[in-house]
C-alpha cells in the first residue's frame, strides 16, 4: 500500500479499515481522501463502536420534532408554537491539554449546534469532572476550565443556569468537560442542515481557516493520548466575539427564505460539515479549497479540509440569493465566500482551482464499519458488590462532625465559586439560578417555564453500570420534579474509556441499557447526544460516566418550587424511599469521603421512583408544599442541611431510625424527596401520597437557628453554612 502506517495513525484508521476503503473505492485513496475517511470514520463523527448500542435508547415521543442524528441538535415542542432545541457535547481531551481554550471552544461548538438550527441560545449548562483539588495540576485544570467557560459564554450573553462539578481521582489525568446548550425557536422557523437543490451555493462564513485543530476529531476525540504537550497544537483557540457576530447574523438569516440549510463547522471542520449536509440531502458537493479564505500561507488542500478553526459556518444558499445573504453577513462585519455548490451525483469532489484533489462517493464516507465487540463483565463488579459494609464502624456521637465534613467536601460544598464567574442572569429569564436542583427559566410572553439539569454519577456506574445508568436518568428527572417540571426530553453525553477493551464495552452497553430502561418507564425520550470514548490515560479508564441533560416543562410558572425551607413551623416530610434492598451506604459520598471506600451495592426501584416524582409534581401544582429537594449525594442529613442553608432557617428533626445511624443520615437510598409544608396541609399531602402509593415520613419541623436531629446532630446553622459555603473557594486559594 502507498499510504504509510504513520499517516493512518495520524487519522486514526486501522490497516483493516484502510483495506476496506481500497476495496470499496476500487483504488488506493490519495492523501486528501484518506483525511476525509479518517475524520468521518472516526469514533467522534462515525460512532463506530457506539451506534449499535445507541439504537437501544428510546426517542419516540409525540413532542419530539427532531430526533438524534437528524440535525445538529434535538428539538422538542413545548406548545405555544415554540420549540426547544438542545444538545450536550464533550470537550474532554482538548481541555485536559489546554483547559481555558479547550473549555471555551467546547462552549463555542455547542452554541453553534443550537443557532445552526435557527434557535436563539437561551441557556448553557455544564457538567465537569476533575481529580482531587489537593493536586496542583487539578486546580490548574479546574480553574482554567471554569474561566474558559465563563470567558466564552459571558461574552456571548448566554446565561449559565445549572450544572455540576465532581472531584474524584478517577478523572485526574482525564477531566470531563461536558457542555450543554439550550435554544428556543418558533416551530415553523426551525432551520435544517441539509444541503439539497442542485446548483445551490455553499457559502463559508466567519473566521478564516488556519492550521489549528488539525486531527481534532480523529486524533484527540477518538483515541487515548499520553503526551499532552505534543498535542497542544491540536487544540483550537476561540474568539467569542466572532461567535457572537455569527450567532446574530445567522439568526437574522434564519428569519429569511434565502437559504435551504445551515451547518456549523465543528469536529473535522469543512469535511464533516459539507459532507454530512450533502449526505442528509442525498446530494453531492463540489468544493474548491482555493476559494477558502486562509489565515496562513501555504496550506494544503488536506489541511484546509481538516482544519478545525473555530467560529465558521456553512450556509447552503439558494442560487440567486447570494447577494442578499452576503449583505446580512456584511452588516455584521463578517466575511462570506462562495466555495462550492450542491450537485446531484452523490459525490464529494474537492478541487484546488482546476485540479481535482478528492473524488469520493459520499455514502462511502458516511458509512463507516460498525463494531460490536463482545463485552466482558469486569471482575471488580461482583467483588465490590459483595464488599461487607458491616465492618464500617458506625459514627455514633460523631454525626455532627461527619455532617460538617461532608458539607465541606468539594463534591457537596457550594459551587458558588464556580457559578459566580458565569453570567447566569443575562436575557432576564432566570427564575431559579444555579445552586438549586434545576435551573428554571421563564418563557417570555407565555405562562410557561422550563427547568434544566445536568447530572451523572460515575461512581455508581463503576459499581454497577446497569443500575448506575437507571439512576442517572432517574435522578435528573427527580431534579426536575423538585422544581415542579414534567420531564420532556434528554440530551446525553456518554463518557467512557476505550471501547475496544471488552470491560469498557461492557460498561458502555450496560449503562445504555440501564438508561434505556429508565427512559421507557419514566417516558422520557433522548433527542440528542454525544459519545466521548477513549477517556483514559496510561491504560486507566475513567469511571463510566453518562451525563444526563434533561429538559422539563412547567405549565404555569407560578407553580415552580425551590429547595429552601420557607417558614418557621412548616412540617418536614420525606416522600418515598423505604423499599430499597440496600442500606444506601454502597457507593455513597459518605463512604468515599469519610472512609475512603468506593464499594458496596446500589439499587433503585424505578416504579417507585416514578410514583414519587408524580406525587411531588402533584403536591407542587396543588400548592401543598413550600419546598422540595432531591435527596442524593450525602443522603438525608445533607439534603436537610441544604434546604436549611437555602432557606436561611434551621430544623428540629425527629424521627425513628431504622438502621445504623450512618446509613440513616448519610445513606443514598434512591427515590426520595424532602419536602416541607404548612402543618394544615400535611393531611392533604398524606392523602396524595397514599393515592400515589408513595411512602411518607415526617422528619420534624422547620425553625430556629440550629441544625438539630434528635439523638444525632446538633450544630448552629452558622457553622453548617460556613462549612458548606467556603470550602471550594478555600481549596482554590
Amino acid at each position, binding site marked *: 500500500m502507498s499510504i504509510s502506517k504513520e499517516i493512518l495513525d495520524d487519522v486514526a484508521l486501522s490497516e483493516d479499515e484502510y483495506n476496506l476503503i481500497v476495496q470499496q473505492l476500487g483504488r488506493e485513496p490519495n492523501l486528501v481522501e484518506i483525511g476525509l475517511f479518517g475524520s468521518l470514520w472516526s469514533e467522534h463523527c462515525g460512532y463506530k463502536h457506539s451506534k449499535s448500542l445507541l439504537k437501544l435508547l428510546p426517542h419516540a415521543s409525540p413532542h419530539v420534532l427532531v430526533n438524534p442524528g437528524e440535525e445538529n441538535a434535538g428539538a422538542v415542542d413545548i406548545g405555544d408554537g415554540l420549540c426547544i432545541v438542545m444538545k450536550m457535547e464533550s470537550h474532554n481531551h482538548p481541555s485536559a491539554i489546554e483547559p481555558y481554550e479547550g473549555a471555551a471552544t467546547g462552549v463555542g461548538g455547542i452554541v453553534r449546534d443550537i443557532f445552526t438550527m435557527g434557535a436563539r441560545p437561551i441557556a448553557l449548562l455544564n457538567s465537569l469532572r476533575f481529580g482531587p483539588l489537593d493536586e496542583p495540576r487539578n486546580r490548574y485544570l479546574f480553574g482554567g476550565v471554569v474561566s474558559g467557560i465563563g470567558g466564552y459564554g*459571558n461574552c*456571548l*450573553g448566554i446565561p449559565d443556569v445549572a450544572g455540576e462539578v465532581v472531584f474524584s481521582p478517577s478523572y485526574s489525568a482525564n477531566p470531563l468537560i461536558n457542555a450543554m446548550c439550550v435554544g428556543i425557536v418558533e416551530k415553523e422557523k426551525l432551520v435544517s442542515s441539509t444541503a439539497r437543490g442542485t446548483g445551490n451555493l455553499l457559502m463559508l462564513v466567519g473566521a478564516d481557516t488556519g492550521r489549528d485543530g488539525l486531527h481534532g476529531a480523529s486524533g484527540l476525540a477518538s483515541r487515548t493520548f499520553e503526551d499532552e504537550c505534543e498535542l497542544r497544537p491540536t487544540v483550537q483557540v476561540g474568539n467569542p*466575539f466572532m461567535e457572537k*457576530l455569527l450567532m446574530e447574523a445567522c439568526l437574522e438569516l434564519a428569519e429569511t427564505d434565502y437559504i435551504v440549510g445551515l451547518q456549523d463547522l465543528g469536529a473535522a471542520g469543512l469535511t464533516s460539515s459539507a459532507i454530512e449536509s450533502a449526505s442528509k440531502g442525498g446530494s453531492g458537493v463540489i468544493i474548491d479549497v482555493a476559494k477558502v479564505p486562509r489565515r496562513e500561507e501555504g496550506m494544503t488542500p488536506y489541511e484546509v479540509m481538516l482544519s478545525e478553526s473555530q467560529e465558521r459556518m456553512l450556509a447552503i444558499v439558494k442560487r440567486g440569493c447570494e447577494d442578499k445573504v452576503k449583505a446580512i453577513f456584511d452588516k455584521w462585519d463578517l466575511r462570506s465566500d462562495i466555495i462550492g455548490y450542491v450537485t446531484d451525483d452523490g459525490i464529494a469532489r474537492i478541487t484546488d482551482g482546476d485540479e481535482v484533489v478528492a473524488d469520493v462517493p459520499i455514502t462511502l464516507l458516511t458509512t463507516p464499519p460498525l463494531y460490536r465487540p463482545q463485552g466482558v463483565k469486569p471482575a471488580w463488579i461482583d467483588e465490590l458488590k459483595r464488599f461487607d459494609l458491616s465492618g464500617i464502624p458506625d459514627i455514633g456521637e460523631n454525626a455532627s462532625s461527619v455532617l460538617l465534613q461532608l458539607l465541606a467536601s468539594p463534591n457537596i460544598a457550594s459551587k458558588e465559586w464556580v457559578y459566580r464567574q458565569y453570567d447566569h*442572569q443575562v436575557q432576564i429569564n432566570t*427564575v431559579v439560578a444555579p445552586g438549586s436542583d434545576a435551573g428554571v427559566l421563564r418563557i*417570555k410572553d407565555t405562562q410557561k417555564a422550563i427547568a434544566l439539569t445536568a447530572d451523572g454519577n460515575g461512581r455508581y456506574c463503576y459499581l454497577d453500570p446497569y443500575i448506575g445508568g437507571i439512576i442517572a436518568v432517574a435522578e435528573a428527572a427527580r431534579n426536575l420534579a423538585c422544581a415542579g417540571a414534567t420531564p420532556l426530553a434528554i440530551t446525553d453525553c456518554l463518557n467512557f474509556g476505550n471501547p475496544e477493551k471488552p470491560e469498557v464495552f461492557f460498561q458502555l452497553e450496560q449503562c445504555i441499557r440501564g438508561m434505556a430502561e429508565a427512559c421507557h418507564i419514566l417516558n422520557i425520550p433522548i433527542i440528542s447526544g454525544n459519545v466521548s470514548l477513549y477517556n483514559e490515560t496510561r491504560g486507566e479508564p475513567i469511571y463510566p460516566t453518562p451525563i444526563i441533560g434533561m429538559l422539563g416543562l412547567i405549565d404555569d410558572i407560578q407553580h415552580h418550587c425551590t429547595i429552601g425551607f420557607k417558614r418557621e413551623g412548616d412540617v418536614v416530610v420525606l416522600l418515598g424511599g423505604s423499599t430499597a434492598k440496600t442500606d444506601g451506604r454502597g457507593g455513597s459520598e459518605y463512604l468515599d469521603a469519610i472512609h475512603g471506600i468506593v464499594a458496596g451495592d446500589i439499587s433503585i426501584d424505578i416504579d417507585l421512583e416514578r410514583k414519587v416524582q408524580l406525587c411531588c409534581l402533584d403536591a407542587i401544582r396543588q400548592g401543598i408544599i413550600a419546598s422540595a429537594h432531591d435527596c442524593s449525594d450525602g443522603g438525608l442529613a445533607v439534603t436537610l442541611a441544604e434546604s436549611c442553608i437555602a432557606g436561611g432557617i434551621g430544623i428540629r428533626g425527629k424521627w425513628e431510625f431504622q438502621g445504623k445511624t450512618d446509613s440513616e443520615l448519610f445513606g443514598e437510598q434512591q427515590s426520595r424527596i424532602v419536602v416541607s409544608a404548612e402543618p394544615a396541609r400535611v393531611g392533604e399531602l398524606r392523602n396524595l401520597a397514599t393515592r400515589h402509593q408513595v411512602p411518607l415520613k415526617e422528619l420534624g419541623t422547620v425553625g430556629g437557628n440550629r441544625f438539630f436531629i434528635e439523638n444525632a446532630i446538633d450544630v448552629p446553622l452558622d457553622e453548617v453554612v460556613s462549612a458548606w459555603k467556603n470550602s471550594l473557594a478555600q481549596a482554590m486559594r
Partner: protein
Amino acid sequence: MKFGVIVFPGTWSDRDCYHVLAKVLKQQVDYIWHKSTDLSGFDCVVLPGGFSYGDYLRCGAIARFSPVMSAVEKFAASGKLVIGICNGFQILCEAGLLPGVLTQNNHLQYRCQWTDLRVENDSLPFTSRTQQGQVLSIPISHYEGSYFADDATLRELEASKRVAFRYCTPSGEITAKANPNGSLNNIAGIVNKAGNVLGMMPHPERCCEQIMGGTDGILIFESIIGEAARVA
C-alpha cells in the same frame, strides 16, 4: 417618551433593556444600530451591557469610535438623558463623557451576583424616585468593573455629589467587604457635570419584575421617565 437602545457588535443587554422598557414599563423603544448617526426623536439613549467588539484592546476602547458615539456626544450636550449600563458605562468613560475608567476586578475574576447599592444623590434625573441613602438591590455581571480615577477627579466627583450609587451592605454601610470589585470609594455609578449622563456597572434591567428576584431597577427607569415628562 421614547428610548433608544444602542446596539454595538457584541452588545447583549440590548434585548433585556428593550424588554423592560417596552413590555414592563410600556414605553416606546427602538434599537439604534451603532453605525447610525441620527438620534432625533429620542428622549433617552441607553448604552447596554455586553462585550462591544469583544472588549478587545480595552473594554469600550473600540466602541467609542463607532459612528453613533459622535451623535451620542451631541445628544448629551443638548441636555438629553444618556444611561450607560456595564459595558455602556465603560464606553462612556472611554468616550470622555464620564471621567475615570473601569479596570479589572481586584480579585481578577468575573462576578455575577446581587449587590446592594446606596443612593448617594437622590436629586439626579436618574434617582428622583429613590430616597437619599435608600439601599437598592441590583445585580452586577462583569470582569472589568473596578472604578478608578485620579485623586483630583475623585475629589471633584465627591464634592459635586456626582457619585450616584455606592456598593454597600444590606443595611447601607459602605464597607470593603461590600465592594465586589475593588472600586475606589465603593463607586458603582457616577454622573457627568451636567447630571444628564449616568454610568453604572450594575444592571437595573435585570431586576424590574418580581419573578426575576427583585424590582429595584424600576426605580431608575421610572426616574428617567418622570424626568422626561417634567422636561416635556
